[in-house]
């Protein structure tokens, strides 16, 4: 029969030979592959007992840094919030009162600093915009929660504890062309 496209190919199944009909050589071949893989390195690890090393450029859970004296670096300038393409950051600023100099580095500080982790796309632009070395993305994973509200991280989850500093030295390595602006 003529087909319209004239490209039709008739496929015919070849008849199996006697050795192929036995199936045994093919089964042995398959088993050999399985046995070979028993002695190879495993592709998986036993998470959470074991963890893999993160990439140097991994961007996860944010941290709000403190300086050497334990004062909060953030001065609520709002550059992170304006740089944020997902509009995940909300800041309310307040004026530092006399006697609070050991808590906040500048005259102004963030009374509340919220990041909506569901909106955040972990692009790192907030970190790039920050003029005060205050916000960094770390290699920590944002935990799972049951409620949407729980993903709005406030200062309690973002600011590092004075006795548990978070190392961000990996994030501080900039390219050779980067020159920090000094006061």
């Amino acid at each position: 029969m003529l087909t319209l496209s004239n490209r039709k190919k008739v496929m015919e199944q070849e008849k199996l030979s006697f050795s192929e009909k036995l199936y045994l050589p093919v089964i042995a071949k398959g088993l050999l592959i399985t046995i070979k893989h028993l002695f190879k390195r495993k592709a998986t690890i036993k998470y959470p007992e074991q963890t893999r090393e993160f990439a140097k450029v991994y961007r996860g859970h944010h941290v709000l840094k403190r300086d050497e004296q334990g004062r909060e670096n953030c001065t609520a300038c709002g550059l992170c919030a304006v740089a944020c393409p997902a509009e995940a950051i909300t800041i309310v600023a307040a004026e530092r009162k006399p006697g609070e100099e050991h808590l906040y580095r500048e005259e102004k500080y963030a009374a509340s600093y919220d990041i909506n982790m569901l909106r955040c796309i972990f692009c790192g632009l907030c970190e790039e915009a920050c003029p005060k070395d205050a916000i960094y993305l770390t290699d920590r994973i944002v935990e799972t929660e049951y409620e949407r509200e729980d993903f709005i991280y406030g200062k309690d989850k973002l600011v590092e504890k004075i006795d548990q500093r978070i190392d961000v030295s990996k994030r501080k390595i900039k390219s050779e062309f980067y020159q920090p602006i000094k006061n």
Partner: protein
Amino acid sequence: MAKVTIDDITIEVPDGTTILEAARMIGPHVAPPTMCYYSKLKGTGGYCRTCIVKVEQGSEKDPRPMPKPVASCRTTVMDGMVVRNNTSPEIQEARAGITELLLINHPLDCPVCDQAGECHLQDLAFDHGKVKTRYEFERRTFTPQDIGDNVKLHMNRCILCYRCVKTCDQITDGRVHGVINRGDHAEISTYISNAIDNDFSGNIIDVCPVGALTDKTFRFKSRVWFTNPQEAHRDCDKCCGKVTLWTKGTDVLRVTARKDAFGEVEAFICNTCRFEKKQLSDWTIDGPRKVDHKSVISANHYQVKEAPKYLYDRVKLLNQGLDLPEVKDNK
């Protein structure tokens, strides 16, 4: 009338016009930046030297160039004068030097300062400034000071442009505000911290090109680029009542006078309008304020595209219960 050519654009202006005013008549892209000159106030200009221009030809009759850059706010035009501003690399370099001098004592506290985003010195430094300072000495520092109930003075940030002093001199009667000491010790003061209790004293906030004089009712409330600027007016018995409201949601965070393309107020407003009317119900909204798309204030402000007019007409017909005509061309 005098014919003057600024940056290869020729314009005819009345005799006695300054080069700066002539450049402003051409447009903001030609006008040199100003830090101290304020066209609404008499006797301003000549202090900051940011508005310097190169005069390539003095006049038609005497075509010799002027030997040095001249302050355009203080130099009047001559017929046939040829001036270069943005097109002269020499002037750009000189302006970078002036910017560096202005920034010598200016602190790098833009993240804290309420003026950031609408600061003229910030714009100037962005266009002409260097990345690093070469100044090695201590900057002069002062403690922030209250001038009256509603104005905060950060003398650290002051560039001594004298605009506020001229405002107090000319807008308000009985001057209680001036500059004391000289040279590096010069300081804006109210003479033994006299509170300014004049109806128009709040205008010193608007004329200040930097964040030296800021509104205490707006202090650290928000950054300007998170607020929504709207033009509004009210019937005021003291001033024209035409203002810009800087709102966030339904809160009026700040009230300022309306500013033109050169950052100068269109009309001075009174303290009642500025500091006391902080309810949306006090004002009649005229519409959104036009913000330059290059300004950080317009960041994240999305413009709603208006539906084409024919759609409105169709909705109107629908509401009247009439049959809709066929759409021929939906442009």
